[in-house]
């Protein structure tokens, strides 16, 4: 790519790294637009899908950091459930929605902190550390909620996720804007701050990062705390959407979140990852589910499709890498 072609396509450098998931998304959009021309691309349906992307999208923002650092967080589904239960419990006790949200986010942060400490200080690999947390957080959530859901008034947290006209901003629900804002912010953090650069450095070559004086342990702890915070936030949004705190929510959600990040172009080997790509990955999966519903495709077909798409996305990406090198 030389300077002249670069200037003739001013957006290309920004788009190239996320070309894969973007193309995938456009394919899915095209397919369902063809099958269901009226409903699929209606403003109302776009709004619907945007809300459906919020929870996985928030999770994917945090997960992008973890995966870029060469780690993985299997506990995020359980953390979402635990945070939703904590937020609901606080709401039930009559506190302000703001406090509920903060409690939920703090819960996520604590889970992330424990993950980070176990990984960075005890040297347990992320897969195992977060697999453990997956059980622990889920168990604690059930325990706190006495093994049932907690009904509580969500207040304006409910409005955040609401598609009703009263609560929309520029046509989209508030939570969607919040997610977008956070995505842009964290995208900047990943690319343009020291924390982001260290995250990528650790994922790229941990020993090097250590030798260069990066505080690898401490950075990892921050990364998992960050992921926990986003898990907590997703939990709060889950509470807002369900208006109940549900200890059995988001079972298996970690795999959706990881799939979104991977479809978005991140490598589980670390060193790569883009928030924009992850959000596109989350959108792709949401549109796929939505399109399957609209066209009445049975769930098992959808399950098969998503499996195939995940593998195809990565296989195509690998192929692209290989041919680009040659």
């Amino acid at each position, binding site marked *: 790519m030389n300077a002249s072609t670069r200037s003739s396509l001013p957006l290309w450098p920004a788009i190239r790294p996320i070309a894969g998931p973007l193309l995938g998304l456009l394919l899915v959009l095209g397919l369902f637009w063809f099958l269901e021309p009226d409903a699929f691309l209606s403003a109302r349906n776009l709004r619907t899908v945007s809300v459906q992307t919020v929870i996985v999208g928030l999770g994917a923002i945090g997960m992008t950091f973890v995966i870029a650092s060469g780690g993985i967080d299997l506990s995020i589904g359980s953390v979402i459930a635990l945070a939703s239960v904590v937020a609901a419990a606080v709401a039930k006790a009559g506190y302000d929605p703001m406090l509920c949200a903060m409690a939920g986010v703090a819960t996520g942060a604590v889970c992330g902190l424990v993950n980070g400490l176990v990984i960075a200080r005890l040297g347990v690999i992320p897969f195992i550390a977060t697999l453990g947390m997956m059980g622990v957080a889920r168990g604690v959530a059930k325990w706190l909620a006495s093994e049932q859901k907690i009904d509580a008034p969500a207040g304006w947290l409910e409005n955040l996720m609401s598609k009703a006209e009263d609560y929309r901003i520029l046509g989209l629900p508030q939570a969607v804007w919040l997610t977008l804002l956070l995505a842009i912010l964290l995208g900047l953090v990943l690319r343009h701050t020291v924390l982001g650069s260290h995250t990528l450095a650790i994922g790229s070559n941990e020993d090097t990062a250590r030798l260069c004086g990066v505080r690898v342990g401490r950075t990892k702890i921050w990364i998992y705390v960050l992921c926990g915070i986003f898990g907590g936030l997703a939990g709060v949004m889950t509470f807002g*959407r369900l*208006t109940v705190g549900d200890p059995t929510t988001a079972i298996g959600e970690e795999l959706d979140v990881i799939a979104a990040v991977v479809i978005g172009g991140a490598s589980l080997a670390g060193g790569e990852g883009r928030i924009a790509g992850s959000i596109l990955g989350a959108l792709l999966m949401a549109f796929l589910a939505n399109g399957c519903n609209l066209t009445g495709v049975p*769930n098992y077909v959808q399950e098969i499709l998503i499996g195939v798409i995940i593998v195809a996305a990565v296989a195509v990406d690998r192929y692209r890498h290989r041919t680009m090198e040659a």
Partner: protein
Amino acid sequence: GSGDAEGGSSEEAKYELAVIPKGTSHEFWKSVHSGARKAEMELPVSITWMGPSKEDDRIAQIEVVDNFISKGVDGIVISPLDDTALVPVLKEAKAEGIPVVVVDSGVNWDGYESFVATDNRQGGVVAARHLAELIGGEGKVMMMRYFEGSASTSKREIGFLDTIRDEFPKVEVVSGNQFGGATSDECYQTAENLLINHQEIDGIFCACEPTTFGMLRALQDSDRAGKVRFVGFDATDKLLEGLRAGEIDGLVLQDPFRMGELAVQRMVEHLEGKPVDKFVDTGVTVATQENVDTEAIRALWNVDFDKWLK
């Protein structure tokens, strides 16, 4: 619309309905589906049957409802996974002019047009009375619960425990807090473990199909089937076999086929401007070894999926 793929003549299909179960991989829902299909064939309506993309996931079910609101169907028939969590999105449907009929499990909202269901609590009450009678009003009983957060089974379980406590003071519940798990194999495993530690029990109650199935297998496997009085819930071939063999002493049956049929009928009646009943109870019945093959009971479990779901 896409309803023509569902059969029925598209000429007649004036209304397009979404029917949303709690999950799709279960005989119970197949029966509901069959009932709904029967109504579809008889009425000017086409239905799309679509469960949550993740079995028993509240958010996934909300998303399905959302998607059908987006699509602009004429009516939504739903069995809500949660009595509270689904309320906002159902309200939204109503606000969009899409009427809602609730089936099987209730919601904390009265904006629906009709509620077609079994009284779940009543199911537990009936089971408790039947079991207590079987063991002569005294002894030790055990109940294995389904999984955490399953609302309709909780109601049955509570109905059972309350009835035992209030009506049968001589019956002691020795274990009532263990969850079997979400799948049949997990329930089986838990049942085995529970049976080991409770050798001296007289009766067992399980409030849904997976737990009943798991318990039945565990009883069979430890040679205790038929020696302990056992009341379960729902009907599958395996459970009916157990009932006929005397390994199960009673199955509380609902009428899922009728639920599906009535729910769609009510919706169509509403859409045609007719008044409909707010609540329709499809009732619970206890099937026993003696009555299982009678005409009335047979209708409850012998749904011909192949006929309806082809």
